[in-house]
């Protein structure tokens, strides 16, 4: 175990490291400046559980109906060796798929992740010479924060005209050619994770990573029905964002150097698994790591409610735009004191203070 691994393990404590998925890796790109999130993710801390332990449980769940619908749609697309998907790819994308092989790389019972990944790697790299093979459930691997992470995607990669395409199946509808932009964005970044993992894999095998196309195939239900619609989505931008964030994670040591060596969020479970660390203890440890809270965190980060509580009184808690409007002043009290001229601005606050004074004067004049 390297020093870094030992350090991260100490930080995490006795709990098993949380396994990353494309979703969690994609989520890291949402607030790249947040050290707290970077450190916890690198250490594999279960942020959801930690949030509950410190008294600020996350508030997102998934409805059973949505899961059922998603699974049913995926099963429908993949039925009979992806027959429905293939005919769509032929028709809509005009892909010259004459004969198609289908290979399911699903887990073989008690197979280890490393073995399963090796099997997927072999199958896919061997496909370098054959065209048109679909790979279902290939297990991919990528480095996150210096540690290997296995991704178990429900994706299919198919090879066509010398290039691999990642296929992402989502159950949100595309109605009259339009879909919810937020959902498409989420699907694109998740697919980018797979593209990156596939490229890394090929590169490790001495093959050209550019063989994996940056155009992913998004499969969604069309209009209000269950029949699929396929769309090509260019994920080049997402790949750039992702690479930047992963390289930042690779420099996690620099972040850790700023923290005390014995810092831990270990819940210290007793023999029955009941945590013995108090919420105050865990909270105090969390406070040692700098967060960069923004309201958007509430919709994608498990410990966001803890950070929101901590950020109370800061202008950024009201939204990044609000903070900018208030001249970038960090604290609400300071901004208001400058506006009311009860506090003398520092030289670098002069410009913001003038704006705030003018705003306060106008508000007072009009409201009077």
């Amino acid at each position, binding site marked *: 175990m390297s020093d870094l691994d030992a350090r991260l393990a100490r930080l995490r404590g006795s709990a098993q490291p949380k396994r990353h998925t494309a979703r969690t890796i994609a989520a890291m790109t949402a607030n790249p400046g947040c050290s707290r999130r970077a450190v916890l993710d690198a250490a594999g801390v279960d942020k959801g559980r930690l949030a509950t332990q410190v008294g600020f449980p996350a*508030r*997102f*769940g*998934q*409805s*059973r*109906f*949505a*899961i*059922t*619908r*998603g699974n049913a749609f995926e099963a429908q697309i993949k039925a009979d060796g992806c027959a429905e998907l293939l005919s769509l790819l032929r028709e809509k994308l005009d892909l010259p798929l004459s004969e198609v092989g289908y290979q399911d790389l699903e887990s073989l019972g008690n197979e280890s992740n490393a073995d399963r990944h090796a099997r997927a790697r072999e199958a896919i790299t061997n496909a370098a010479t054959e065209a048109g093979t679909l790979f279902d459930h290939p297990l991919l691997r990528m480095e996150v924060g210096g540690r290997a992470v296995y991704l178990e995607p429900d994706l299919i990669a198919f090879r066509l005209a010398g290039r691999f395409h990642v296929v992402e199946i989502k*159950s*949100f*509808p595309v*109605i*009259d*050619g339009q879909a919810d932009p937020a959902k498409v964005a989420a699907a694109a970044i998740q697919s980018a994770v797979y593209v990156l993992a596939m490229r890394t894999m090929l590169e490790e095998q001495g093959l050209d990573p550019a063989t994996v196309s940056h155009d992913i195939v998004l499969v969604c*239900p069309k*209009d*209000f*029905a*269950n029949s699929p619609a396929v769309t090509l989505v260019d994920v080049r931008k997402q790949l750039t964002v992702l690479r930047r964030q992963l390289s930042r994670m690779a420099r996690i040591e620099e972040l850790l150097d700023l923290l005390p060596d014995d810092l831990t969020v270990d819940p210290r479970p007793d023999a029955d698994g009941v945590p013995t660390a108090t919420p105050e203890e865990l909270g105090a440890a969390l406070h040692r790591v700098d967060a960069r809270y923004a*309201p*958007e965190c*509430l*919709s994608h980060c498990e410990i966001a409610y803890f950070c929101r509580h901590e950020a109370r*009184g800061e*202008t950024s*808690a*009201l*939204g990044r*735009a*609000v903070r900018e*409007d*208030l001249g970038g002043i960090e604290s*609400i*009290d300071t*901004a*208001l004191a400058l*506006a009311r001229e009860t506090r003398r601005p520092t030289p670098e606050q002069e410009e913001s203070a003038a*704006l*705030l004074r*003018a*705003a*306060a*004067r*106008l*508000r007072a*004049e*009009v*409201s009077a």
Partner: protein
Amino acid sequence: MTTLTSLARAIAAERGTAQRITTVRHVHIHERPLVLVPLTLAGEANAPLAAMVGTARDDARLLVVAQPRNRDQRFGFAADLAEIVLDYVALFTTQVELVATNRGRESRARYADGPQLIVPNPAGAAFVRMFGRSTRFRKTDGQWAVPMTVPVLGRWLTHFAERYDHPGSAALVALTSALTAHWATGQSALEDANLAALMGWLDPPAGMTGAEAGEAAEDPLAFPPAGPVTDPTFDNEVLAPLIDAYTDNPGEPALARLVAAVRGQIEPTWDLVWRGVELLRALPPGERVAVRWGADRDAYSSMVLGLADGRPPQPKRDGAVAAAGRLNRMERDQATYDVQRAFDDPLVLAEYRLSGEAFAGVVTAAQPDRVDTSGRRRVLRPHVTVLTQDPVRFTPGMELTSPARPSQKATVVSVHAGAADKAEVVLELAGGMGSSLQAPPGSVPEVGERVCYTAFGDAYQQTPDFPAREDTPWTHGGPPRDYVPTDGDAAEDWS
């Protein structure tokens, strides 16, 4: 977001109480709006689960789809909703008014009142749009026949959704948006999207601050989400077992339990919406709100006429000319809405004063009878000097307008820095003073009068000429064909 509203947010956060960001109401509130609170089944494409709908707080009708994936039950829901909505939109076709057009030379008729649909939030408005899309192409005969009223409902819902895209329209109001346009809370815009939390800030129960009530309202168990998507925990622990029970044994007891559970989720939102409507209603309306409501009534009148004339349902996609025209109208509506709000409301105008697009001050000198003799004809061109504390970013030669004298043009002659952060602006006035060389009383600001000048005005703008639909140039695909609903549309599954 602007500096003044952000300052209001900071003050709200400091005091734990929401702050007004307007002095008047900028949205029309109907005396009898139709409130619609829709709920959908998670994961499905706009599959209705329930709706609470009615024109008064104590007159709610609850529609529930016991098996949201069942096609017949969905169209049953659509038919029930159609009955309510179509009855409502028919209420306003009794009284007609004449509006002068073409500078009073002609006039045209429109309905004196129109319908207003209020939903809890923008996602509710999206439901209206999607439900309109999924019903307006249905056929009333053949294999997939639906009740006659269903496609008509679809066209009305589409009408409301299209008006919603026009800034300043009040035909379809998303309550959270309307409320946050008038108040700033001490939480973020993202958190304001939760109706219960927002109403906690705006109208906290006795003994609680807005901040406390807002935070308490974040608990989805005590305050169910305003939808259309339901709380996942409710879905998993309550709704799913009840739907399963009903599917296994579709009798009255199972249905009653299901309806009661859904009522528990939808009723709190219903009450919040009406409370929110009352908060808005209590604000005095801005002067130009009625003008914009007139535009909504124009659209309503045209819709009624179109239905009677057998106009085809709104297409899935606009043709080239229709799209260009729509975009142009939306841009003009946005510009008009911004200007009208500023002219109606000194607090909104203050935003422009802060950013240097307007200034207000006191007239310190006036030459009301100044005559310009430099041209061929002698013309009345009074000068006034205004002393202002606002940051003036105007340069000589720029043309300004005053909300108090919209027909008068004011050209900046000079700007001088005065004492104590103040600036002296000299303006030359033209227009709005009659045709003689003597300015009528009141037409030129007097010394001591408080005045305001802006870089924008609400003068009438000429509509650009677009080719007729049948003259769409070949570069834009030529004249579009009418969209004829196909069997595919009629058969289109709801998953």
